């Protein structure tokens, strides 16, 4: 049992476990251990990226820390084992009760097989819990030859839940079957980072309806999230975002299919909301509200420039509020990025026709084979020319990624590894200088996820 526990504690996130299983601390030991090993416990508890177990193993290799590391591993393993057992106790009790109703007390042979994605450690924990519960019902265990009944338990699953089956043969009677459904647990959130210019993503918010934009307010104490139906105001409390208020977006006609929208912090009010053919502002006469009008208000781009957005499509028309140097109009585009230079601003437009236009005030240069997608945002990393383009692209797995490109001499050059996302990037807007907000449609989870992406110049 001791050796099993050790394995369970360290390997909870090994290759056999398809989804990282959190290892919450349990019982009275939790607070005491958190106090003693707060740093390590904080790192390992959420089990975010499957490296925590490995980190513990590495700790064990340090000579001076060897004894302490072993103690930590043992404690973790015991906690992991206790957790695993406790998670499966209720369904094991239910299955044991149903089995015991068929077998009655006496000698029973129990065989447990696994056809599900449960790890070996979890299967062992289920078996332990099941045997414990059966023993409480007066069952004692025997091999097939001496048993009065044979119970073959199969741990199976479907897309919704785990399904535990027990085929029961008592004497020569026809076998009976009992089935118990066990809800699946939640998966952890995986983070990733690039290199060179380092990209990091933080999940801000997730919901079923498409998120169009999200902005941080009050230095991150509050957040506003825009979708096609509402602006949701939230505040950060107890380690998560809590809803304050939902402000409905009133609009008269159907939105375009690939709906886009933008939130901008107002000067004398909280928010401006830009949507295709509609413009909204927050008002505060007592309670806060959102007042919307059907209006083709030009959307703000970088550097004070504004551009018209097609009310029935998913792109900017190409009409801009003021000339960029001598250039007064540009082709229809999906996104625009301003890269400040010493004496001018270089504008980069991701065109609807798949080309990228670099406009420096004198010329409109077309870049043909630029490998980025439709969404781009300006970011200030301090690397290279200072300001760079963060642009969407596709990974080998079919998901989208963000990559940073420098434009030192009018030719974009990649200067970061790709930061991959769990789906297609549906919105990308520049935030503060070294941040952007990316929204991803996670097909697997059927949800939209808004991320804050942080860009820093690596060493």
């Amino acid at each position, binding site marked *: 049992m001791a050796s099993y526990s050790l394995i369970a504690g360290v390997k909870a996130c090994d290759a056999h476990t398809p989804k990282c299983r959190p290892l919450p601390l349990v019982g009275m030991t939790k607070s005491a251990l958190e106090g003693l090993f707060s740093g390590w416990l904080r790192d390992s508890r959420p089990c975010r990226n499957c490296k925590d177990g490995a980190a513990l193993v590495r700790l064990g290799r340090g000579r001076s820390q060897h004894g302490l590391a072993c103690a930590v591993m043992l404690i973790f393993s015991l906690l992991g084992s206790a957790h695993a057992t406790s998670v499966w106790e209720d369904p094991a009790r239910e299955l044991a009760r149903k089995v015991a109703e068929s077998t009655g007390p006496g000698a029973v042979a129990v065989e447990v097989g696994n056809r599900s994605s449960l790890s070996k450690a979890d299967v062992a924990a289920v078996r332990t819990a099941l045997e414990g519960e059966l023993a409480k019902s007066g069952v004692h265990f025997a091999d097939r030859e001496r048993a009065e009944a044979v119970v073959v338990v199969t741990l199976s699953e*479907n897309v*919704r839940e785990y399904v535990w089956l027990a085929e029961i043969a008592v004497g020569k009677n026809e076998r009976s079957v009992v089935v118990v459904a066990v809800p699946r647990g939640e998966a952890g959130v995986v983070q990733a980072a690039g290199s060179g210019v380092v990209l990091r993503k933080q999940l801000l918010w997730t919901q079923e309806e498409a998120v169009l934009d999200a902005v941080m307010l009050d230095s991150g104490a509050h957040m506003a999230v825009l979708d096609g139906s509402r602006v949701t105001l939230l505040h950060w409390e107890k380690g998560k975002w809590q809803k304050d208020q939902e402000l409905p977006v009133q609009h008269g006609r159907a939105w375009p299919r690939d709906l886009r929208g933008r939130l901008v912090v107002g000067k004398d009010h909280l928010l401006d909301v830009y949507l295709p053919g509609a413009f909204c502002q927050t008002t505060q006469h007592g309670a806060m509200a959102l007042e919307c009008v059907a209006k083709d208000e030009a959307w703000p781009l970088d550097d004070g420039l504004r551009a018209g957005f097609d009310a029935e499509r998913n792109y900017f028309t190409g009409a801009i509020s003021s000339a960029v140097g001598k250039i007064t109009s540009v082709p229809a585009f999906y996104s625009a990025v301003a890269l400040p230079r010493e004496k001018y601003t270089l504008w980069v437009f991701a065109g609807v026709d798949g080309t990228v236009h670099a406009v420096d005030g004198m010329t409109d240069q077309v870049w043909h084979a630029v490998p980025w997608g439709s969404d781009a945002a300006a970011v200030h990393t301090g690397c290279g020319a200072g300001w760079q383009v963060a642009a969407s692209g*596709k990974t080998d797995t079919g998901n989208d990624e963000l990559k940073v490109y420098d434009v030192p001499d009018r030719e974009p050059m990649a200067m970061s590894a790709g930061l991959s996302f769990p789906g297609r990037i549906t919105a990308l807007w520049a935030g503060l200088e070294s941040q952007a907000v990316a929204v991803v449609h996670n097909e697997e989870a059927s949800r939209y996820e808004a991320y804050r992406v942080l860009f820093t110049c690596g060493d």
Partner: protein
Amino acid sequence: MKRIACCLLAAISWLTWPAWGGVRPRYGGTLRVTMTESLRSLDPAQDGNAAARTRVTPLLFDTLVRVDAEGRGHPQLAVAWQADRSFKKWQFWLRPGVRFWDGTPLTAETVVAGLGHAQWKARVNGEFVVIESEASLPGLLAELALARNAVVRRGSTGQLMGTGPFVIKSFVAGKLLELAANEASWGGRPFVDGVQIEFGKTLREQMVALQLGKVDLIEVGAEQIGKVESEGRKAQVSFPVELVALVGGPGRTKELEALSLAVDRKSIQSVLLRGGSEAAGGVLPEWMSGTGVLFPVQVDVEKGRAALKAGQAKAPAATRALTLSCDPGDGLARLLAERVALNAREVGLSVQVVSSGGDLHLERIPLGSGDPGVALEEVGRAVGVKVAPGLSAPGEIYLAEKKLMDEGGVVPLFHLPLAALVGERVRGFLADKLGGWGLEEDWMEGP
């Protein structure tokens, strides 16, 4: 140091540009599609042509909700819903501002008029739709998501009106359907201007047409998936959503048991279906039920012979010779039937393949839903066995599955996925896990 590192990285990265990607959908173009089945009617209430109907109906008509393979409900014409604790009374809030193609607003009355069902009653309560039943209906959302429960307005001359993303431009029954983008679609105008669907094309004809660039989207048979992928093309494959089974009706329990034990599913799966399927011992596929282990698929000749013998001891008149029919236009079904007949000899059963009217029929039965209870009901409808509504617990499902097999004389053989292949110009195509095509989300690259 930072600058050097960045420049070095930039130089390296320049050599490894990724493929085009991350682009937003573009508007315009016509999507050309071919299908095997010959859809003769666009009315969602009609039966038959299930695979084609699954794909065509959502282009024209909406249901109150959509339910994905994991059983999660998603808003369609209903934006919200609520059930009481017993799941006997449901209330649906309709999406505001939805209009049929002719501009008529969607109302609760129109929705209720089309929702006829033996198990429940739908009624209007102000702006809401209320559905009530004497039985508990935990799987009602999955039932409402079936194509036959799509909301249709029938004009005075019988013409069909929908609220879907496309409108009918022209329809030649069984041959050609031309659709145009619905500019006023509540979900937004589709990206393509139109869709042209040709029916009744063999899988081979479809593949040739795709290779010649004459179509943009084709169906791929389960037996073709391996070959297509070995050629470096990526087929979009659903979960197994179609049951291939022998259906013999009641009264032949022992013969069917013997036949089930004789059929070498694994070998047929490997050789004829080239891996593009799952051997089936039960009606529902493993991904849906999780109880597949309770329906073994191993060949057991001795047990099969014993079953046949036991059957004859009970009913001496029982025959050792059976006829087996299949759809004469379905080449794969014919091959499968011949292999079944060959395997049957091993247990002493003579099975002759005939073109129609056999004792047994080899059928392809679409499961219709990712909800196991509703899928069982659909199979029950196909084989003429009533399955109790509202089943959801795996234990209940298992018992109902067994009962359906016994009462319907159903011998499950395989579960097949639906697969599709798109041409190079198509972007955004994503067949869902249940085999549906969301063509309104597709768009065309290039001129």
